[in-house]
């Protein structure tokens, strides 16, 4: 299939691996930022095929994983109210909050619905004038434009029964925070292709320059990742630290300016807590004052919640690449997709879930 088969070709994959073997003369540590990339790497076993010494560090780019527990608890508190329809992407439904999760709330009678786009949530609000419809808006720059469009659409329709619980996060501040950590082992980044399809890569140029780190904007198919790794290794071997674009079929330097405009209209940059990582300055989006009436956190009183993280979960260390899921004593035993202790075991993009789905165990493979 056009844009699918040609990026999964086994013969081309072998050729890229051979080229990588010829290119790498010394060990390198490369972080793929996005959970979608982690998923492809682990699912296809690409990280096991890389030449010895090239180690992939799995990054924090799983939106479900970094959504603060407080946001989840707020969503559940809102969903439990009579007259509320809580809408969300499917991944969020099984993430454990302090006391329960959205699926269990649904089984107990809460009206929790999976939607595939925030516009569906707006439609549900139109069709149910007597109900308050809340959309759980999480994600990186990738999902922000669609969420912005939903708010703009709801404003145009004059809806008073639609709101969003917003917990948007931004990639560059997270990369900067990782690089500021003195223990950071990352020598190059594969930037998230879909985030850059929206935002372009101009904001990565100062990061590459300041921290002397190569950044390769990379796609999500097996060959994209192999080529992205190869481009990063070439830069490292040659002592370059530039922003390069592997994902040319989707990404331009300036990004999608119409999408950026919509995001800038509806949201403003704010400090944001990342689950497992902590508060990062200017790392998130919240609704701009003009659209504050769509803020579910204001519409419903959700203060006074007491959130408790599971003490055993090492999600923060996994999200920053400091530890592997298999380093966690609970991995595969007390923490499984059936009984997740933390978000990375739930989301399809979570590193722990990706490892678990590929059957990786503690004794197999410590790259």
């Amino acid at each position, binding site marked *: 299939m056009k844009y699918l088969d040609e990026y999964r070709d086994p013969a081309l994959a072998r050729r890229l691996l051979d080229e990588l073997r010829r290119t790498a003369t010394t060990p390198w540590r490369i972080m793929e930022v996005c959970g979608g990339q982690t998923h492809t790497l682990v699912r296809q076993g690409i990280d096991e095929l890389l030449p010895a010494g090239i180690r992939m560090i799995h990054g924090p780019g799983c939106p479900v994983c970094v959504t603060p527990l407080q946001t989840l608890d707020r969503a559940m508190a809102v969903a439990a109210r009579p007259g509320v329809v809580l809408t969300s992407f499917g991944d969020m439904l099984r993430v454990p909050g302090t*006391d329960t999760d959205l699926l269990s709330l649904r089984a107990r009678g809460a009206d929790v619905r999976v939607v595939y786009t925030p516009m569906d949530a707006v439609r549900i609000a139109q069709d149910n004038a007597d109900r308050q419809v809340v959309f759980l808006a999480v994600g990186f720059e990738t999902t922000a434009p669609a969420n912005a469009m939903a708010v703009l659409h709801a404003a145009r329709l004059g809806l008073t029964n639609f709101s969003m619980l917003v917990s948007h996060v931004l990639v560059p501040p997270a990369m900067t925070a990782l690089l500021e950590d003195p223990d950071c082992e990352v020598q190059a980044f594969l930037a998230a292709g879909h985030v850059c399809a929206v935002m372009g890569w101009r904001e990565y140029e100062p990061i590459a320059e300041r921290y002397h780190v190569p950044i390769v904007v990379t796609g999500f198919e097996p060959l994209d990742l192999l080529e992205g790794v190869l481009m990063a290794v070439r830069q490292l071997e040659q002592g370059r630290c530039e922003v390069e674009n592997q994902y040319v079929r989707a990404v331009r330097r300036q990004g999608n300016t119409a999408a950026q405009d919509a995001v800038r209209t509806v949201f403003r940059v704010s400090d944001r807590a990342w689950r497992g990582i902590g508060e990062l300055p200017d790392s998130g989006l919240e609704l701009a004052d003009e659209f504050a009436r769509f803020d579910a956190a204001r519409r419903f009183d959700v203060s006074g919640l007491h959130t408790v993280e599971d003490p055993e979960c090492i999600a923060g260390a996994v999200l920053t690449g400091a530890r592997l899921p298999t380093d966690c*004593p609970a991995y595969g035993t007390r923490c499984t997709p*059936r009984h997740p202790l933390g978000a990375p075991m739930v989301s399809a993009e979570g590193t722990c879930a990706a490892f678990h789905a590929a059957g990786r165990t503690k004794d197999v493979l410590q790259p």
Partner: protein
Amino acid sequence: MTLACPTPRHEEDVVLLGHGAGGRLTAELVDALVLPALDGQHGPLEDAALLPGHPDLVISTDSFVVSPLFFPGGDIGSLAVHGTVNDLAMRGARPVALSVALIIEEGLPLEELRRVMTSMGKAAREAGVPIVTGDTKVVDRGAVDRIFVNTTGVGQRHLALRPSAALARPGDTVLLSGPVGLHGTTVLSTREGLGFESDIASDSRPLHRLVDVMAPLGEQVHSLRDPTRGGLASALNEIARDAHVPVEIDESAVPVPRAVAAACDLLGLDPLTVANEGCMVAFVAPAAADEALAALRSLPEGREAARIGEVPSSGEAGRVTLRTLVGARRVVEMPLGEQLPRIC
């Protein structure tokens, strides 16, 4: 090391949608709650059960709650016939007779009921099985969603065929009778209006003729399973578990239609865990593999049959491994619970 669950498990005291999804949650519910109460058998749960005292007769029952009622390639009526006919076929049986029980929501347009029943009758005639008894109940609005259908079937086994999930053995070749992922993605796309439904249709169809053409191979046909809920991943894991063997398949050999691959990519689904209603996996002795493949391909419903893997002579029993497109290996886990509710 603490053994106590560190977080409360509120989900345990009510039934979740995932308990009905055919994955690990369903197995846990059946094993822990249903079977003990019913003095159920221990050992592998097959698609159809032998009737006590009648070694050549098998029985199977299935309820259908699919939403929407009508979708490209089928509807709840034809699905209810195919589903039960196929469960019988997976034990090497021809369908002898079906019963049909309807639970109808008050207010269902008669025209819709007529369409469902007409389709059901047509599917039964095409499968060559009479519907010999039935039951009709109507409930208050909201007590069911439009119409739910149960079918129960009795089948007569081919004398030579004795397939069972427990009989797969080292050396076996794994065959797949057709492409995977069509039914689940079609129903989801139709229900949610995702736009793929113009390119794909459910594979809902009877499989007993595919079993018929393999009958001459007799006991060389070890295990048959139709990968419905939980998809191919679930079917292979069940056979690997029940037969205590490893199973290895080749990602590039598993036929996935392009529209299914595209839909799954967009939705974050794995085609191996998406439900099918018209294909089956067969574990056959290696000496019979070519003949079995030719037999499957001789029928229209097996035209795209393929050899997708084997039972290796060494490896961890119960584990299903996939050779990925780029040449690495990964474990194919039993799905926890299907992400798509009410697809059958």
